[in-house]
Structure formats: C-alpha cells, structure tokens
C-alpha cells in the first residue's frame, strides 16, 4: 500500500493511531465504506448469501428444510438432467428465445430508425413507445389475460373476431393451435420494445454525421445502402449489448408466464400446464411450491445459471463483446 503513504506525504499529514490509519488519508477509506457499505451489506444478504446457499443446498437432500443434513453429492444434478419436464422447460425457453430475441431486435431497431428520422413530434413518439416499459409485467399480464386476450366473447380481440363472424378463441386454454405464444410474445414485445428502442436511438445519435456526408460524396444511395454500410456497422456495440440483454431477459422470464398460464388447479393449490413452462417457472414449483424441494430446485438453478453463462460467453465471443466499434 504505497499510494496512501505517498498521499500522506503530499498532504503533509502524519499517520497517527491505527484507527486513524485505517480511515485513510482525508478519511477516504471511511467515506468509501460509508457510501458503499450499506449496498455491500444489502447485496450480501439478499444476493450473495442466497446464491451460495442454493449451491450448498443443491448437494443435499433438502425437502421442507433449508438446513439439510443428508449429503447426496451430484444426485440432484443427475435427477434434474434426466427429468424430462426440466429438459422440456429448457426446450420451451429456446423456442421462446428464438422468437422473442430477433423479433424485439428487429422491432426496436426499426422503431429507432423511424423515430430518428422523424422531423416532428420526435420527443412525443419517443415517449409513447417508451412508456410501456414503466408498466409491471404482472399488471400487463392481467390486462392481456382479462381484457385483450380474454377467452370469451367479451375480450377485445374476440369482439373483433366476432364482428368478422369468427367464433371466440380461448387464447390461453388451448394448446392446438398454440395461441398462448401469441399472448406471451405480444405482451413482452409491448413491454420491452420501447426500452431497446431507446438504446438504439442513443446508438444512432453517436454516429458522426461526417460519415454520412462522406458516404454521400462517395455515391452511396440513401436508404438501404447507407443503412447496410454505415448505420448498421456503426451500431455494432449497441447491437451486441441489446442481443445479450435480450437473451438474459428471456432466460429470466417468469412473470408473464406465471400470471398468464397458472390456473386454479385441482384443490386450489395451483397448477401450471406442462407446455410453455420456462425453467424458472418449473423451478419455482419444485422449490417454492408445495413440493418444497430445495435440493432439486438449487441444482436446477445452478444448471440454469451455467447455461445462461455459457450462452452469454458464446454470444459475446461470436459478436465480439467489448471490442471497440471503431476498430
């Protein structure tokens, strides 16, 4: 620790007692902990300890207890990796991600381009599209379930269909055709498009105008050619960030699935259909539902975390996360 000593020499202060030295020059250490301490404590209590604890639980037979005593090694991991329901939940996620990630990406980019070019009401459109981001997933799910995609003739969409002479569709109750995907995907699009649009808008504003001028001088046609060779490559770092965020968000999806598809079940205990059951919902039912099986739940959570990490790393490598867009 040479730096503090040096600082003290510069400021001309002499270090005194131990407490004085721990506080650092100008009480810097003290102030560091005053400002950072509460957040570190909060993070430790609500994030790191539970995380470490769930890893610990994943090696135990932990049913209806969080202080288990029977060590089972990797048995829980083996069970989860051979559990068809858990594997199918990973499959559900992949279907969901394959759809939601490109759709949001293209939609957000398209909206950003349109608004970026808008001559009037730019701020208005920006706000209008961004507003749904402020809505909670739970509230939006209820609106989608109870009003827009309500299964009876009173629902908004069914009213329109009825007007066209089509019988009402119970959107969330049937699995053939899988209309529930329409409900889930439109909900998420509505909520998150605006946010990613703002990211793209920020990216668009960072592109130097000189580039467009130079391109025009060199004979690039406005429209597709300029977008393909100037705008899109310049947005690369934004695109990478957006794609990674989208993928992680898709993995973490829980609220809309749970609120749209969970049903009353047989005895009021609550049930969830086996389709459209993403990993987090499945783990929720294992660990926090009536099963209270924290061992298997913990193992599933660790597997899921590893899968997310793997996807992110691979995606980062492929897209060149952290590489400077100017290079």
């Amino acid at each position: 620790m040479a730096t503090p000593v040096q600082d003290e020499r510069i400021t001309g202060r002499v270090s005194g007692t131990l407490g004085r030295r721990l506080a650092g020059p100008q009480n810097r250490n003290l102030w560091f902990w005053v400002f950072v301490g509460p957040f570190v404590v909060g993070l430790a209590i609500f994030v790191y300890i539970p995380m470490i604890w769930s890893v610990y639980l994943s090696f135990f037979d932990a049913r209806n207890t969080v202080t288990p005593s029977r060590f089972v090694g990797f048995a829980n991991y083996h069970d989860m990796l051979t559990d068809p329901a858990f594997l199918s939940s990973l499959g559900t996620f992949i279907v969901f991600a394959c759809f939601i990630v490109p759709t949001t990406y293209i939609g957000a980019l398209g909206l950003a381009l349109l608004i970026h070019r808008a001559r009037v009401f730019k701020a208005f459109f920006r706000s209008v599209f961004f507003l749904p981001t402020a809505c909670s997933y739970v509230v939006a799910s209820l609106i989608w379930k109870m009003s827009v995609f309500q299964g009876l003739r009173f629902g908004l969409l069914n009213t329109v269909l009825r007007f066209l002479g089509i019988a009402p569709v119970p959107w969330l109750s049937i699995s053939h055709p899988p209309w529930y995907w329409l409900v889930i995907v439109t909900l998420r699009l509505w909520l998150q498009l605006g946010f990613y649009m703002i990211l793209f808008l920020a990216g668009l504003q960072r592109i130097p105008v000189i580039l467009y001028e130079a391109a025009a001088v060199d004979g690039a046609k406005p429209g597709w050619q300029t977008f393909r060779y100037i705008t899109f490559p310049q947005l690369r770092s934004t695109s990478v960030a957006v794609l990674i965020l989208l993928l992680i968000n898709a993995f973490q999806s829980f609220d809309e699935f749970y609120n749209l598809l969970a049903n009353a079940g047989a005895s009021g205990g609550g049930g969830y259909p086996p389709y459209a059951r993403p990993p987090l919902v499945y783990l929720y039912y294992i660990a926090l539902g009536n099963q209270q099986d924290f061992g298997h739940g913990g193992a599933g959570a660790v597997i899921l975390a590893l899968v997310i990490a793997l996807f992110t790393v691979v995606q980062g490598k492929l897209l060149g996360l952290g590489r400077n867009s100017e290079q």
Partner: protein
Amino acid sequence: MSINSPEAAAGPFSRRRFISAVGGAAAAAALAACGSNTGRNGSSSATSAEAGGATTSSAGSSSAGSGAGTTTFATDAVPSTPSSAEQGTVTLSQWYHQYGEAGTQQAVQRYAAAYKAATVKVQWNPGDYEKKAASALLTDSGPDVFEWGNGPSIDQIQAGQVVPLGDILGAAKSDFTQSLVDRMTYQGKLYGVPQVIDMQMMVYRKSMLAKANVKPPETLDELIAAAKTLSNGDVKGLFLGNDGGGGVAAGPLLWSVGADYLTADNQFGFGDPNVAVAFGKLHSLFTSGNLLLGAPSDWSAPDAFTQGLTAMQWTGLWTFPDIVKAVGDDFGVLPWPKFSATVGKPAVPIGAYGSAVSAKSKNPDAAKAYVKWLWVDQTQDQLDFAQSFGFHVPARKSLADKADKLKSGQAAQAVDILQKYGHAQSPLLWTSASGTALSDAVSNIVKSGANPAGELSKVKTVVQAELNRVLK
C-alpha cells in the same frame, strides 16, 4: 492545503458532518430493519408487508401490543417472549387461506378473540397461500397454528415441520368423520384436526336442461352428449375449469371407473385400461367446442354458472349461497358420472382443511390447546363456520346433523351424494411431485391429444419413485 477562511472551513465541514450523520442514521436504520426480522412479535408487521397485502389482525387482550411497539429493538424482545409465556399471556399466530365468501375473515377473528388462554393473531392470506405458508414454516416467524388442505403433507410430517397433536380429539374422536381423521394420521399419530368438509360436485341449470330436453347425465358418454346438446351459441354446455378439466376432473374420473390414485396398500392405483379410455373421452370433449374455456373466474367460483355462460359446471358446495342468490331454485346437483352403464360408480371428492401446529412454534402446547379449543370444543363456532358463509359440511357427525341449512333443497341432495359417493381428495402418500406428474399427463392427453396409455405410464414411473421415497 491550507484553509484560512473560516467560511470556507465551515462550509464543507458542516456539509460533511450532515452527510455523515444522515449516512450513519440510514445505515443504523437498515441494520435495525434487518435485525427486526428475527424477532417473533416485532416482525409481524414486516412479514405482512412482504406478504403482499396479507392482513394481520390482533385479537384479544392488551398484551398483543407488547411486541408491536418495539419493532426496532425486536432482537431484545425475543428473550422476553418465553417469560411472558409463563405469565399466561402467550401470543399465537394463526394462518388461514383466503376464503372467498364475505364475512368469513371477520368470523374467524371473532372466534379467536373469544379465546382467553392466549392472544391469537389471525393472519388472512390472499393469493397463493400454500407457497407463502410453506416458506414461512421454514422460519421462526411463521404461524403457530395453520390450516393445510387435507392436513399436513407427508413431506411436512417427515421433515418434522409439524408436531403430532396427541390425543387432542379425546372423547369426540368417534364423532369426527373417520376417513378424514385417517387422512390426517401418519403411523398412528394425528397431525391435523379436520375443520370442515369441502365437497366438489356438478351443478346444472334445470331450466336449460328441460328446454333442451336433456336428462341429467348419469354416464360419461351422457355427460359428453349433454354438453353437446346444451351448447347453444354463447352458452356452452359444460365448465370444468379453464384448463378443461385437467385439474379437477382427474380424481373423480379415476374413481368413476373404479380406480384410485393409490391402492389401499399404497401402490400405483390406476393401471386399469378404462382410465386411459376415460381420459381419451375427456380429450374429445375438450376439442368438441362444447366446453367453456377462458372464463374470467375459474371452477371454484360460481360466476360462470350464475352468469349463464354455461349450463353445467363443476364446482364446490361452498358456492351454494351465491348460486341460490343468483338463480334461486333453478339448479340441480350431480356427482361425476360413472364410466358407463355397467362399469364404475359416480364419485365426488371430499376434502377438509386440517388445523396443524408448526414445529417451530415457541409455544406448541399453547398452540395445541388452542386447536383443541377451536376445532374440537367450540362446536357452536364450528357450526357457524360451516354454514354461515360458503357452505361446508361440519367434520363432526353430531354437528352435521344440526346443520339446518344443509337439510333442505340442493344442499341436502349434495350431502346425500357426499355420503354415497364421497372419496377423500387424495391419499397422504400422493405427494405433490406425483400430483404434478399426473396433471402434466392429463393436460397432454386432454389438450394436446397425447396417447393416454403412454402418458399414464410416465406418471407411473414418477409415482413409483415417490412412493419408494416416502415409504420408510
């Protein structure tokens, strides 16, 4: 760095002093808030805030306030709790799920307030009660006394989360419905006291059936045919829940062909090929378009039926007061129909919330005494609870005979069906993992048209593994 001007010195210094004071206070408050969660009395307010709208109400003597006033110093308050227990001012917390019928919450608070030997705080839990209660039972700040559908689960019992209640029923033991007492007993020890019997069955609009010239269905095929005849534009024939019956119909369907979840000696209970056939029929019903799907409230509420969205609905006895209010005498009751004219019997599920005592309770004996007082001794309250709000059948035979509101009309017919065709909702060793496996399979069969025999054999694998686990 020389500071000569007194103004300059005072400026930053006082600002820093201010920030340090505020920061310190905030940190202290944060720590105190964390600390208070460990306290039993003091944490009740925090718990109810986290629980998202759960209401804690305190009833009884003034000692209830002893913890509430000292939230910040709850850690100090903990050691004092046992000593106050010795003085006969025990505070017990009792949890209920949210009963849908108006007035129930006030009633249970009234019963609790009348208890003199301890102060009972009633917590009413809207939303997902089972998950909330299950998490709370892991901590010290959970309930002392709580209700659980059909008594504590086998996993709760084997993990030692609930205490055996001993000979709490006393002389009244033979007065309780035997099948329910058996359901809440494990290895000869009683873990729950049946509160009231809940029953599910089918209700139908007499006028709609008469108009369509349909007689109340007695077999599965007749039910499917009736649903078809009764479907008429905006009115559907039958409502089995928004999942198309995957949840509620599974049990009755097993019994209606003469099978069960588990056999009497705790083996997989539905290898009968007719089970697969029956589930296949449910699939044809689901795809027929005669089933009401996507209703705003699910099967456990009477709304779809009372609003005329469906001619027949599977629901519970508890909805009868609302149904009578809406349609008067224009409804009839039916059990789940038998499989065919020659095979099987009609069936209805009966269940009971069981009152149990948490092993983490600081005063298990006081909690047991309270359970005995409320659910064994206070027969007048039990009768009130059973028939003043939603309809339930008292768990004690002597009270069932006194329940006047269950002696006439459709309620009497329902009780008659219960006595003839009632089955305990699910066996003790039917774990929730088994339940999930079955409901997944039923959903695959009913909604997606999967091969019934194949799906049921997958269930058998899970059930067998679960049985191996819990049979110790």
